[in-house]
């Protein structure tokens, strides 16, 4: 079990927002490696709609920070072709919700070429994309969809929840010789124009470091109940766990950080200890992440679970626009607390 800490040797206690941490990672790698470039819609002068590329144009110029037409199939495919020729593209898909216009390039090409070539061709590429709702952006701009990507083989899928992981996972993603989908939640970017999230700004070392892809992080230890979660929901779970601890309920919270590869070991060890499993997931409930976590347990040992698993996910409904409805379907703190209470009563 890995409990992640900021390296004690870190020379700094400087804090960054998640978006700045991402940008710092990209800049650092662009300086080290001239084959890294960024391409996507509004990544240049605008700096990325969710500030994933702010300031990079000024620093690296328009040859390496490249605005595109609204042609996702063309420019994601361009990334794949450039990667095949040895470059290391970082391609932004502005919202993950737009995947449907370019999914063939993503899953039939970017993800499969290495396999189809019997390993002779590598596609070292990062596809970064904004996920998540909570600000009334409606059914086409609020989804997480990591389950969709994790289901299809050939892509790694990482989902940071903090500025520290955002930087370290971005560095790992750029260094990886495989295509990596990097999914950042808008609600943890620390944007000045979104509801504040106190976890969206935190200590980030200035130097190079990486967070390994495929290792979950036990962000809170506990003995009564395991919460498996990721992305923005990590913070909701931590807050709720804190509150639950006041009622004497001791929750362990696992931040998956990566869906592919999935750190089955960390999940199993935790459930072996707590015998109770709650999955909190902002993606759609059925046929996705939460089911896979259930399978991890019952494939190994169903007797680990002493009571029914619970899921707090988006209940198979498109994300509604009206706030009253959206918050009824998102994994809110109220829904999480409710599930916990039911599980320990």
């Amino acid at each position, binding site marked *: 079990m890995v409990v992640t800490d900021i390296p004690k040797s870190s020379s700094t206690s400087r804090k960054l927002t998640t978006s700045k941490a991402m940008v710092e990672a990209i800049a650092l790698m662009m300086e080290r490696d001239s084959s890294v470039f960024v391409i996507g819609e509004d990544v240049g002068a605008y700096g990325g709609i969710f500030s994933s590329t702010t300031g990079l144009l000024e620093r690296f110029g328009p040859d390496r920070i490249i605005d595109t037409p609204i042609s996702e199939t063309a420019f994601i495919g361009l990334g794949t072709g450039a990667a095949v020729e040895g470059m290391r593209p970082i391609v932004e898909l502005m919202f993950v*919700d737009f995947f449907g216009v370019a999914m063939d390039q993503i899953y039939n090409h970017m993800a499969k070429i290495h396999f189809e070539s019997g390993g002779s061709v590598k596609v070292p590429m990062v596809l970064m994309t904004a996920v998540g709702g909570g600000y009334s952006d409606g059914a086409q701009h609020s989804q997480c969809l990591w389950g969709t990507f994790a289901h299809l083989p050939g892509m790694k899928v990482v989902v940071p929840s903090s500025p520290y992981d955002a930087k370290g996972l971005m560095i790992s993603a750029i260094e990886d010789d495989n295509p990596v989908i990097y999914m950042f939640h808008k609600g943890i970017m620390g944007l000045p124009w979104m509801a504040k999230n106190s976890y969206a700004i935190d200590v980030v070392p200035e130097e190079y470091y990486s967070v390994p892809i495929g290792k979950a992080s036990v962000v809170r230890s506990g003995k009564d109940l395991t919460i498996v979660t990721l992305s923005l929901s990590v913070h909701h779970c931590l807050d709720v766990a804190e509150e639950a601890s006041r009622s004497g309920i001791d929750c362990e919270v696992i931040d998956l950080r990566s869906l592919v590869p999935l750190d089955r070991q960390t999940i199993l060890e935790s459930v072996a200890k707590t015998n109770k499993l709650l999955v909190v997931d902002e993606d759609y409930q059925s046929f996705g992440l939460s089911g896979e976590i259930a399978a991890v347990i019952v494939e190994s040992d169903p007797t680990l679970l002493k009571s029914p698993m619970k899921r707090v996910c988006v209940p198979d409904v498109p994300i*509604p626009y009206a706030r009253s409805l959206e918050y009824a379907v998102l994994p809110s703190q109220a829904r999480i607390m409710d599930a916990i209470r039911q599980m320990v009563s």
Partner: protein
Amino acid sequence: MDDQVRIGLYQKMVLIRTFEETILRDYHADKKPVWDIGAGLIPGEMHLSAGQEPVAVGICAHLNKDDAITATHRPHHLAIAHGMDLGKLAGEIYGRESGLGRGRGGHMHLFDPETHFSCSGIIAEGFPPALGQGFAFKRKGLSSVVVAVTGEGAANQGAFHESLNLAALWKLPVVFVVEDNEWAISVSRSASTSVASNAVRAESYGIPGVLVEDNSVEKIYEAAAVAVDRARAGQGPTLMEIRTLRLWGHFEGDAQGYRADLDSVASRDPIPLYESQLRASEILDDQIVKEIKEEAMSKVESAIEFAKASPIPEPSSALKYVFAE
């Protein structure tokens, strides 16, 4: 062109602008002191169409409610020009049960069976469903047409090409409109488009391509008449590119730092320009303008009041409408 038509065009533009100015005010009213996109009476992204009213009004003057429109993330001008009920439109924007989508859709997802209106937040992806509406109209022997609208940024999306080819091949009654406001968020037309005008792309499909070079409601009206008639007569689609103006930001909150032409924008606002023109021709005077603006304001206010007074959707109803029963 008849003076009454001119006044009508002006009137519709004023109605749209009045509606959007009211939305603008309410949108920003309660997001302070620290601006939060998700807060307030109207949360979420807000793409207003101010400056593009001539496109909507010039085209929709040739349509009736049996004709269809598929619009984009920036849909209000087209919705209003096509005759959508203002109360239901406002209801949706305010996320109320009285909205077109009972608050489920929001301002990028307006579906109005009464006016065959729809829109989508995905770039260019309103074109393919337009084909289907045109196909259905044709099969039913109707003379109804579909107007499918995108921005110039969207014209580089694959759906644009596929849709124009299919419509041309099957002579579907569709008028394709590229609302060219020169910007796709922060990316200019010249940075995204390999040709100077999308109108030339009509040649790839063997259909007429029309470029309306300025944001004149009358020129748009005239060009649209030809395209709509052609579609109605069963002669197939037309591609219209209309040079228009994004008067405000891409969405509310867009500081437009990337926009070099920012200073001149306000002076190009088509509504005061058209008003001056009609005043100069003595078609409008203070009195008529006052009446038109007051009438618009009263319509808009009652729609907004209706919206604000209607119930917020019950959280317990969140799982409804995924499937038709």
